[in-house]
């Protein structure tokens, strides 16, 4: 109960005063042409591409599985 109250309080605190939520990860301190901003953008893109590759692999695996299941049910 106490934990739930504490978590609720934390969430309410974040909703009422969300400086962390407002912090822009793309442009630090609003300086969009900062090299750090550009670097972070590229790093996020790089990570996104890796995740995309993994998701494509998983998606293809699931599609193949569906195809196999259909083939197996046709044979049976």
């Amino acid at each position, binding site marked *: 109960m106490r934990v739930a109250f504490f978590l609720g309080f934390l969430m309410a605190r974040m909703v009422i005063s969300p400086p962390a939520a407002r912090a822009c990860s793309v442009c630090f301190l609003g300086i969009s042409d900062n090299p750090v901003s550009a*670097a972070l953008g590229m790093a996020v893109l*790089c*990570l996104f591409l*890796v995740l995309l*590759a*993994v998701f494509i692999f998983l998606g293809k*695996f699931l599609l193949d599985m569906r195809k*196999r*299941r259909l083939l197996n049910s046709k044979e049976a």
Partner: protein
Amino acid sequence: MSVINTTIPYTVGARPDTGLYNAKLGMWLFLASEVMLFGGLFSTYVFLRMAAAHWPAGSSILSVPLGAVNMVVLAASSITMSLASAALKDGKFDRFRTNLGFTILLALVFLTVKSFEYGMKFSHHMYPQTSTFLAIYFALTGVHILHVLGGIVVNVYFWGPGSRMGKTQPRRFANRIETAGLYWNFVDLVWILLFVTLYLL
């Protein structure tokens, strides 16, 4: 007291819907998580490199010939690992042990070269805290070395006590070696990427 006798399915043959046996499916999922781990580290490298005002050329700090030697050594160990797996599928157990032994030996050569390289850096007072380049170099290669060590432990087990399964359940054992080979090829691929990004670019 009743004893429930259960057998785990698909340890030898492939499951009809996935087309994979258990170990291979598990290994692919594990490798997917490994890709994300190294993806995170590589994106950190991209961030540090792009954000830095000055980034040194890898060849000015690291020894390209030693890195290249390690690449050849790991590529050769991948070949011997594949040969070991193929030998087991052909039922040639002695040839399997010889090839797996060479794989372990080559992995140890890799670690020796790497420790020599690390030693050279430390003797020149080049530590992770010296520069951002060295920090990411030690982080990336250090995580890779942990993976090589893990691979060696697994391969030594399959070469030694684990090889008993090769006599009792040869097909299941062949599957295990094939799965270990997948992991080893991944470790080799990561080193090629590390060599290109850290040493050459």
